[in-house]
C-alpha cells in the first residue's frame, strides 16, 4: 500500500494511516464505536447521518406509502368488481387512481430502492458511510416531507385528480380550479430536490468511497443499477421539475406555456413529462434487477453468469431509455417517421433485458439452487419480468399500440413491470437482508406462504387485465356497462388483488414477529460472497473496524473459487480513528487517495428540509411573507451547514506535518 500512497499526485497526503486490525471488544474497536454512535433519544433521531439509519427510514417510509397506495387500489377494485357500482363517486375514483399512481411511482418505488442502496452501498463497498452523510439525511427528510405535502389535500377531498401523468389542459386552471394540481406540482418539485441530491450522493460515493482494491469491475450489480439510475435521474428529473414548475406558473402567474388558446402547446407537457417519465421507469427497476443479480447467486451457490455483460446491459438499458419516451405518445398524431424510430428503439431496448434474463437462468441452471424464501421471490421475479417484457414489446409495436394505448393492457403491462420487477425483488431483498438489518432471521414457513399467496394473487389479479385491455376496456373509467364483455375479467382481477394483498399482509406479520422473536442471525447466514456479510449482524455504527483491502468480486468465497492466489484482507486494513474518518479512493482502480473527514451528526438537514417544505407550503397557500421567512430560514440552515469547521478540514496545514510513522 506504500506504493499506492506515494504514487498519489501532489500535494501528498500529510498523514499515512496505520494498517492493523481491531477485533470486536478491542480498545480500538470500542473507541470507533464511540466516535460513530449517534446520541441516544430524540436528539440522535433528528440529527443522525448514519446511512444505515437513513436507509431503514427510507425502507419503512416507502413501505408505509406502499400500503397506502395498496389500500387505494383495493378500494378501486371493489368499485370495479362489478359493472355500474356506486361505491365511489367519479371524483373520488379519479382522486384515488391519481394518488395510487403518484404514491406507487414516486413515493414507493424509487425511495424503497434508495433505502436498500443507502443501507447497503457503504457495506458492499467497504466504506464507513456515504460520501455526503448530511446530504443523505436531507434527501430523506425532503422525501418524507414531500410525501406528506403530496398527501396534504387528499383527506380534504381535494387531492390531485388528473392521473399521475397529469396532462394539460385538463390540469390547467380552466378545468381544475382547486388547490389539488398546485399540490401535485409543488410536491413534485420538492421531491425532485430530494431525488437529485440523493442521486448525486450515490454517484460520488461509487466513484470515491470504495475499499482499496475494489476496482470498478468488482462492484456488485446493485451498485451498477443504482449508479445508472442515479445518473439518469440527474438528467431526467430536471425535465419533470421544469414541467411542473411551468404548469405552476401557468396556474398561478398566468403564463401560457401549455395554454393552446394563447399559443401554448399541450404537447410540450407530454414531451417534458415522458422525457422524464420513461427514464424514471428504468430508474425504478434497474436497482431492483441489481438486487436479484447480487442475491440470486448466493442461493445458486455460484457467481452470477456474465457479470460484465449484465453490468453493461444495465447501462445500455438506461442509455436507450432516454430515446424511447415517444412510445407513450404514439397516438398523439406524430408523423410516421418519428413513430417508426421510437417504435424501433422501444423494441431494441428489450435486448439488454434479454441479456439479464439469460444470465439469471444460466446462473440457476449451472448452480445448485437452495429453495429459501428470498430465492423463491427472485426466481418468481424472473418469470414476471419476462411477462412484463413481452407485453412491453407488444406495446412497442406502433400499429398495435394504436389499439393497446390507454387500455387495461397497458395497466397490466405496467403492473407486471412495477410489481414484478420492483415489489418482488424488494420483498425478496428484505427477506435476504433482514438478518443483516436486525440480527434476526425471518420465519421461513411464513415466508414461503407469503411468496405463494403473493405470486398466485398477483397473476390472478393482473393477468386478466391484459384480457380486459384486449377486450377494449379503457383505463381510468370509474365504472362500466354490463354489456361490454368486461364483467368476468374485472371480477377475477378484484379477487386476485385481495389475494395479493393478503400475501403482503402475511409478509408484514412475519416481519413484525421476526423482529422480536426471529432466530438470532450469524454474520453470514446465507453463506453469501459480498462484503456486507463480512461484518456483524446488525452492523456496528462504524461498519468496518478496519477498511478492508479487496482482491476479487467475491471476497467471502475466494477460498472456494478457482480465481487465483490473491486474497482480500478483511480483518487487517486501514485503521482510521482520528474522529469520523474513512478512506477516499481513486475513481476507477480504487487506489487509496485521501483520508476523508466525515461530518458529525447534525440537525441542519432536518431544519433545511423543514424550512424548504414550509416555504413550498407558503407558495401553495399564497402566504407571501411566510414563504419569504421560510426561505430565509432555509438559507440560515444552509449557512450553518456550510460553515467551515477545522474538524472537517481534509488536509492538515503543512506547517505542522502530521505524517505518522509508517508501521513498517
Amino acid at each position: 500500500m506504500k506504493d499506492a500512497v506515494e504514487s498519489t499526485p501532489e500535494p501528498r497526503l500529510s498523514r499515512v494511516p496505520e494498517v492493523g486490525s481491531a477485533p470486536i471488544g478491542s480498545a480500538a474497536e470500542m473507541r470507533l464505536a464511540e466516535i460513530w454512535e449517534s446520541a441516544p433519544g430524540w436528539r440522535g433521531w433528528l440529527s443522525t447521518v448514519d446511512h444505515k439509519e437513513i436507509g431503514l427510514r427510507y425502507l419503512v417510509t416507502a413501505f408505509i406509502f406502499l400500503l397506502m397506495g395498496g389500500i387505494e387500489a383495493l378500494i378501486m377494485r371493489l368499485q370495479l368488481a362489478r359493472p355500474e357500482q356506486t361505491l365511489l363517486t367519479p371524483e373520488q375514483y379519479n382522486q384515488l387512481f391519481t394518488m395510487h399512481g403518484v404514491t406507487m411511482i414516486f413515493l414507493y418505488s424509487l425511495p424503497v430502492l434508495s433505502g436498500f442502496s443507502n443501507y447497503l452501498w457503504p457495506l458492499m463497498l467497504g466504506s464507513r458511510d456515504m460520501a455526503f452523510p448530511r446530504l443523505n439525511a436531507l434527501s430523506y427528510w425532503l422525501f418524507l416531507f414531500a410525501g406528506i405535502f403530496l398527501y396534504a389535500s387528499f383527506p380534504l377531498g381535494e387531492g390531485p385528480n388528473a392521473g399521475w401523468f397529469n396532462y394539460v389542459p385538463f390540469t390547467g386552471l380552466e378545468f381544475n380550479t382547486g388547490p389539488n394540481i398546485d399540490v401535485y406540482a409543488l410536491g413534485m418539485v420538492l421531491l425532485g430536490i430530494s431525488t437529485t441530491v440523493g442521486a448525486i450522493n450515490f454517484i460520488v460515493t461509487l466513484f470515491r468511497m470504495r475499499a482499496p482494491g475494489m476496482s470498478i469491475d468488482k462492484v456488485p450489480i446493485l451498485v451498477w443499477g443504482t449508479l445508472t439510475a442515479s445518473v439518469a435521474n440527474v438528467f431526467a428529473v430536471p425535465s419533470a421539475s421544469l414541467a411542473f414548475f411551468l404548469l405552476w406558473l401557468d396556474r398561478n402567474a398566468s403564463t401560457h406555456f401549455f395554454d393552446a388558446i394563447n399559443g401554448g402547446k399541450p404537447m410540450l407537457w407530454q414531451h417534458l413529462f415522458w422525457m422524464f417519465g420513461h427514464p424514471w421507469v428504468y430508474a425504478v427497476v434497474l436497482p431492483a434487477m441489481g438486487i436479484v443479480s447480487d442475491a440470486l447467486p448466493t442461493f445458486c451457490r455460484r457467481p452470477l453468469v456474465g457479470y460484465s455483460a449484465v453490468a453493461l446491459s444495465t447501462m445500455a438499458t438506461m442509455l436507450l431509455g432516454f430515446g424511447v419516451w415517444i412510445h407513450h405518445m404514439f397516438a398523439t398524431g406524430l408523423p410516421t417517421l418519428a413513430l417508426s424510430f421510437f417504435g424501433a428503439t422501444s423494441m431494441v431496448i428489450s435486448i439488454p433485458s434479454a441479456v439479464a434474463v439469460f444470465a439469471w437462468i444460466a446462473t440457476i441452471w449451472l448452480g445448485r439452487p437452495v429453495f429459501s424464501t428470498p430465492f423463491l421471490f427472485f426466481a418468481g421475479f424472473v418469470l414476471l419480468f419476462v411477462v412484463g417484457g413481452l407485453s412491453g414489446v407488444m406495446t412497442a409495436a406502433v400499429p398495435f399500440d394504436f389499439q393497446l394505448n390507454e387500455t387495461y393492457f397497458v395497466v397490466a403491462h405496467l403492473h407486471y413491470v412495477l410489481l414484478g420487477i420492483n415489489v418482488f425483488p424488494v420483498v425478496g431483498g428484505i427477506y435476504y437482508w433482514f438478518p443483516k438489518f436486525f440480527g434476526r432471521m425471518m420465519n421461513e414457513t411464513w415466508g414461503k406462504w407469503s411468496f405463494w399467496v403473493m405470486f398466485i394473487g398477483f397473476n390472478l389479479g393482473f393477468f386478466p387485465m391484459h384480457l380486459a385491455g384486449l377486450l377494449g376496456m379503457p383505463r381510468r373509467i370509474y365504472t362500466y356497462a354490463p354489456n361490454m364483455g368486461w364483467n368476468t375479467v374485472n371480477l377475477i382481477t378484484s379477487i386476485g388483488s385481495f389475494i395479493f394483498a393478503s400475501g403482503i399482509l402475511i409478509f408484514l406479520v412475519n416481519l413484525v414477529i421476526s423482529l422480536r422473536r426471529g432466530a438470532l442471525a450469524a454474520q453470514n447466514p446465507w453463506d453469501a460472497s459480498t462484503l456486507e456479510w463480512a461484518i456483524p449482524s446488525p452492523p456496528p455504527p462504524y461498519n468496518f473496524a478496519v477498511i478492508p483491502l479487496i482482491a476479487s468480486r467475491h471476497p467471502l468465497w475466494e477460498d472456494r473459487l478457482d480465481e487465483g492466489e490473491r486474497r482480500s484482507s478483511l480483518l487487517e486494513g486501514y485503521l482510521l480513528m482520528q474522529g469520523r474518518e474513512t478512506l477516499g479512493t481513486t475513481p476507477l482502480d480504487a487506489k487509496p487517495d485521501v483520508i476523508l473527514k466525515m461530518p458529525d451528526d447534525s440537525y441542519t438537514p432536518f431544519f433545511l428540509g423543514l424550512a424548504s417544505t414550509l416555504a413550498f407550503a407558503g407558495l401553495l397557500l399564497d402566504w407571501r411573507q411566510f414563504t419569504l421567512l421560510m426561505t430565509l430560514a432555509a438559507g440560515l440552515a444552509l449557512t450553518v451547514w456550510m460553515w467551515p469547521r477545522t474538524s472537517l478540514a481534509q488536509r492538515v496545514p503543512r506547517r505542522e506535518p502530521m505524517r505518522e510513522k509508517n508501521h513498517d
Partner: protein
Amino acid sequence: MNDSGLRCRHCAAVGSAFFSMVSAAMLSSAAEAETEAAPLNYFLHSYGPASTPTMYLGWVFAAIAVAVFLIIALLLAGALFRKRAVDEPASIGRDNQGMRWIYIGTGVSTCILFALAVYVLITLNTISRPARTPALTVTVTGYDWWWKVEYEDNDPARRFVTANEIHIPIGLPVLVKLKSADVIHAFWVPMLAGKTQMIPGQANEQWLEAEVEGIYRGQCTQYCGLQHAHMGFEVVAQSPADFRAWQDEQRRAVIPASAADAVAGQHFFIERCAGCHSVRGIGAAGAHAPDLTHLNSRRLIAAGLLTNTPEHQVEWIMHVQKLKPGDRMPGFELSSSEIAALSAFLSTLN
C-alpha cells in the same frame, strides 16, 4: 354488434386459438361467452383496412409472446429442477462459465426482434394512409363528454352537424379530422382503426373504412375528467345508397311544431334549452351541447349511455346528474305538464 347476422370474417378458428392461449385457460368459458358481446374487442374483430393489418400483427405478436414465455418458463423450470450430480456441498461454481447462454439467448432474441420490427414498420406504413384518396371528410370535435360531428362539403349549404353518431358509406375511406373543444380526448373505433388523441390547438386526423355494414362502437380513451367513462359514440356503416339517403335527411331543417303540446314544448325548448343545444329550423342555435335537429334518428343518447327512447329522454332530462354525475348539462326540476310538452316537441325531431 347488434346485428347478429354480421360476423367477423377473420375471427374463425385462428383467432379463437390465440385467445385461448393468451387467456392461459384461466377464463375459459365465461370470457369466451362474453367476448361474443364485447363491442370493443379489436383483438378478434376487425372490419376495415385501417385495422385488419393491425389485428394480424397483434395475433403474430401474441403468438410469439406466448411461445417465448413458454420457452423461458421451461428453461427456468429446467434450471430449477434438473437433476444435479452429488457434489461437495461447500464448493462454489466457477465464475466464468455459462456465457454461451447469454450469447445464444440474446442472439436469438435479437433476430426475432429485428424481424418483428421490420414487420411493424411494414404494417405501420400500410395503415398510415388509405389506398385511395378519401371521398368523405368528417370533422369530429371532442367535448366534455360528447362528440360533435361535422360533415364537410364544398357547398356550405350541404354541410351539416350531428352528434355522437357518425355515419359512413361502406367500401370508401373516410378522413376524420380531430379537434378538441376543451381537454385532450382520444377518438377510437377499435374495430375500424386505432386511436388518435384530439389535442386542443392541434389539427390531428386519421382515416377509417368499413368493409361491412354494421354499427361499430367508439369510445374516448384519453382520461378527460369526471365522465370519461361515459364518452362513447357509434359509427354506422351503411351502403352508399343508404348513406346518401341519411345525409339528405340530415341536411333538412325541422319543420316547426304544429300540434298544441309540441308548440308549447318548442317554446319551452327555445327558452330553456337553446342556450346550449341547437335545432335547425326553429332558431335554436346553442353551440355548447349536441345538435338535436334529428335527435330521433340516433340510436343512443348521452354519448352512448342510454338507448334513445322517449322514456330515456325524459329520464335523462330529469336525472342527468344522477345518470352522469358532473355532466355539463344541469339537472332540471320540471312539472309534469312541462315534461309532457317537451317530450311532445322532442318526438317531432325525426
